[in-house]
């Protein structure tokens, strides 16, 4: 006996529709369908009523749908396209997350109107929704209009979040609207795209008018001026890379891209973080899917690059968000070849010159800020009336001055180590002594440095004498301590008292 596995259709519909996490994917699917239908113009409008319900309207002048096409529009996994973008029959199922779907389409003298009521509510009630079909004759040119009422928004369609900028970026980065096919003369046709949002969603501009070509900002290879690296831009022309797999299969990777500074990149509709948008994109159907920034290597920063590498041998997940065949030899071969290609780009003289120029300009900027910081320091020095040590090195300078100007004792630096607690060895009339040099004596005690090996304190000022008194009244590292400033010494310890002379330079230099 043989049995056929059963499919729970309701669950499958819910599953596929839910698989689209970002409601903006509705725009991607609409544009792909219109493109597949040969449309040269597609208009998308998104409206929101007072209750916050969204209505999507997608109109195109493509070849329209007959009854079979309409079936595959509503059916699951039953696409009648074999070499087009939507060959899986999943995309339009995102429309099921709504209160009503209405389709009006004209093809070959027939106009079909079709309505599906409450698809999402019915699916969640465990029943399959149905759709009506009404055919009439028509002499209109072919077209399609899809209305999706009460589209289940989710985060992405929240009126506070949905803006023209966001949509334009999405179109160029994630849909056929950002196609690079036109560089390669594949069977590409141009399609104008208009998107209009109701004023309640975004009233900052009239509408988006674009087409389905990803255009890089104009080249600017050798700009003149002092700070121009950010404006530099070079296009890397379309190249077809071919790789032969072990089994003899040949893959073609169509790669095109640009390198540019931030100003140049900002001419693209990025509207946000460059770190998430630039680098090396892998694409299928000339729609970008995932980035593969490893191709750039660790020596280079990926955000300078915007390259799109299209390969029809990539296999995608149902929602087109991920590449599915990453563990196979196809993906390996594609990424290997991309690594090679990007290494060439990174060794291009122009690119190296661009990176060099950025570096130089950054140095130039730091010289400028150095200049202003020096001005501040000079003002501060003038206010202080000359040397006023704030660090041990300056204390050394003060000590040298003190020694040179007839100090009563010999006191010369013999060794100095900035990072050591006992940071100096000084040559004195009594031989070499270990010394602690500090701008303020109180800083030394705040750091709770042991006194065991210290023979001398040398400081610019005593610092916070109240803080020293406080230490005196408690103890220092468990032992009594006394600061005798009239005799310039510190006495430390209980039985074996140790006396450490203190030299305060401020009033001696």
């Amino acid at each position: 006996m043989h049995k056929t596995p059963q499919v729970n259709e309701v669950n499958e519909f819910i599953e596929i529709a839910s698989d689209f996490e970002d409601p903006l994917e509705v725009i991607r699917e609409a544009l792909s369908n219109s493109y597949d239908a040969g449309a040269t113009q597609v208009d998308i409008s998104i409206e929101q009523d007072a209750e916050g319900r969204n209505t999507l309207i997608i109109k195109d002048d493509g070849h329209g749908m007959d009854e079979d096409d309409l079936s595959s529009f509503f059916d699951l996994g039953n696409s009648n396209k074999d070499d087009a973008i939507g060959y899986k029959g999943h995309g339009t199922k995102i429309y099921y997350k709504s209160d009503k779907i209405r389709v009006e389409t004209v093809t070959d003298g027939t106009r079909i109107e079709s309505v599906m009521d409450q698809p999402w509510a019915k699916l969640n009630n465990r029943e399959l929704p149905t759709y009506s079909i009404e055919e009439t004759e028509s002499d209109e040119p072919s077209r399609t209009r899809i209305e999706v009422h009460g589209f289940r928004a989710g985060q992405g369609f929240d009126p506070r979040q949905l803006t023209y900028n966001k949509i334009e970026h999405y179109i160029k980065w994630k849909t056929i609207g950002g196609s690079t096919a036109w560089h390669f003369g594949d069977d590409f046709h141009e399609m104008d795209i208009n998107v209009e949002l109701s004023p309640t969603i975004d009233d900052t501009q009239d509408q988006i008018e674009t087409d389905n070509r990803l255009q890089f900002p104009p080249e600017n290879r050798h700009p003149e001026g002092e700070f121009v690296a950010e404006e530099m831009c070079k296009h890397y022309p379309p190249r077809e890379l071919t790789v032969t797999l072990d089994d003899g299969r040949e893959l073609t990777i169509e790669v095109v891209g640009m390198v540019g500074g931030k100003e140049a990149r900002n001419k693209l509709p990025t509207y946000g973080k460059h770190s998430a948008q630039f680098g090396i994109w892998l694409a299928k159907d000339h729609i970008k899917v995932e980035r593969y920034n490893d191709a750039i290597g660790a020596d280079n920063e990926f955000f300078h690059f915007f390259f799109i590498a299209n390969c029809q041998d990539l296999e995608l997940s149902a929602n087109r968000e991920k590449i599915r065949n990453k563990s196979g030899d196809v993906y390996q071969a594609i990424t290997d070849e991309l690594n090679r290609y990007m290494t060439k780009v990174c060794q291009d003289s122009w690119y190296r010159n661009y990176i060099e120029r950025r570096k130089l300009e950054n140095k130039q900027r730091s010289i400028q800020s150095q200049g202003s910081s020096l001005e501040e320091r000079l003002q501060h020095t003038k206010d202080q009336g000359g040397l006023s040590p704030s660090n041990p090195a300056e204390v050394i300078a003060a000590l040298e001055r003190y020694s040179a100007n007839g100090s009563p004792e010999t006191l010369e630096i013999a060794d100095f180590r900035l990072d050591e607690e006992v940071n100096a060895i000084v040559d004195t009339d009594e031989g070499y002594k270990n010394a602690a040099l500090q701008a303020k004596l109180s800083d030394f005690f705040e750091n709770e440095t042991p006194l065991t090996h210290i023979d001398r304190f040398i400081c610019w000022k005593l610092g916070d004498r109240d803080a020293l008194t406080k230490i005196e009244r408690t103890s220092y590292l468990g032992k009594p301590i006394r600061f005798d400033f009239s005799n310039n010494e510190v006495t430390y310890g209980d039985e074996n008292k140790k006396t450490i002379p203190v030299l305060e330079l401020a009033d001696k230099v």
Partner: protein
Amino acid sequence: MVSFDVVAEAGEARRGQLQINDRTLETPHLFPVINFYGGGNEGALFGGGVHRTIKEFLAHDNEVTGGEDYSDLFNGVMTSISSLADYGIREKKLEWYLDNEIREWECFSDYDGMIFADSGGYKILKQGGLEGEDFEKDIDQDKALDIQLDLGPDIVVNLDHPIHPDDEFEERIEKMEQTAVNAARFAERRDEVDGACYLTVHGYYEAMLERSFDLIEDELAEPVPEAFDGIALGSLVPRKDNVEVLVEAVSDCKREMQQRGYEDLPLHVLGISGNAMPLLVAVGADTFDSASYLHQAINGKYCVNLFETVPIDDANFDACECRVCNDDFHRARMRNEMDDLYQKDILGSVAAHNLAVQQRELRKFRQLIAEGDKERVAEYLEEAVKDQKGFRKFAYQLINERINPYFEETDTTYA
């Protein structure tokens, strides 16, 4: 009689013929390092473990070669006077070794390749001389040349004082000056040499090399090309894994030679072979020497190509085109499937294979240069480094900047 003729060029790479008396060497060429004297006696080809096996290949010992002629691997070999004392021999033995020139021994009488005798500067100066079981000999330029000439060489080189990347500036100058003094003394005795005299220079980049040449020229009584037949660039061994440094050193040395009018002299790169070789040929190096083929074998490594080695047990002989791997006799040896095999026999065949891999690449390169098409040279280099992730960028950089740019200035998307 010494001459060096450039017969073809492709970009900066050149193919040449080095003619010394009646021997001719096609360049680019790799001189494998051979220890002719390894502490043993003549019956054992003077011994030396794996070195001995290699000498058995060179001397057509059928028991080791399986009856095949492998002399094409040894058209020119490098040997160093410092290796004479590698095996802790007694002075008497050393004298006996030096009584005859290499080719005067019966066992080497058939060997008709070139012998390049290195002065062993690096090792000799490190040890302070030649040190055996019962002797210590201070070696200066004259003594070094005496020993070199005792070997009956085709090419000799002055005793040099190699520099080191960690040298202080003053230390480096001192070494260069000593090398220059040696070079001048060496030039004074060139009439005693029945072959080619090479001059050693040292430096990692142009300014250093400029100084090295200047110091030598100041010491010499005549122009470099009149005193010497070739230039040997030394001191690169400590940087052998830094291909960027190697390429810069060789190409700057070439530039320095051109500016001084020595571009007709062959350029030898001391102690370097392996994966950097194609890139160095591309920037104009003519000959190399190295013992890496042997050291790899001694460490149980089998070369898959210039870049990769695998443990000998993992080697796939079917994937190799070399004659060693296509001979069942050597396969059985390398797999240790024969009776009474010594380690030196197993590893000797591996060393011969490793050397064959390197020589094969240079042979390919010679053919490419002969076609005179620099684009083919670029293609060859690109193919060779295809899967070498870390190494690739240096090769691509070289191709891009010096052979054939990947992206022309005129190349534009919207042309």
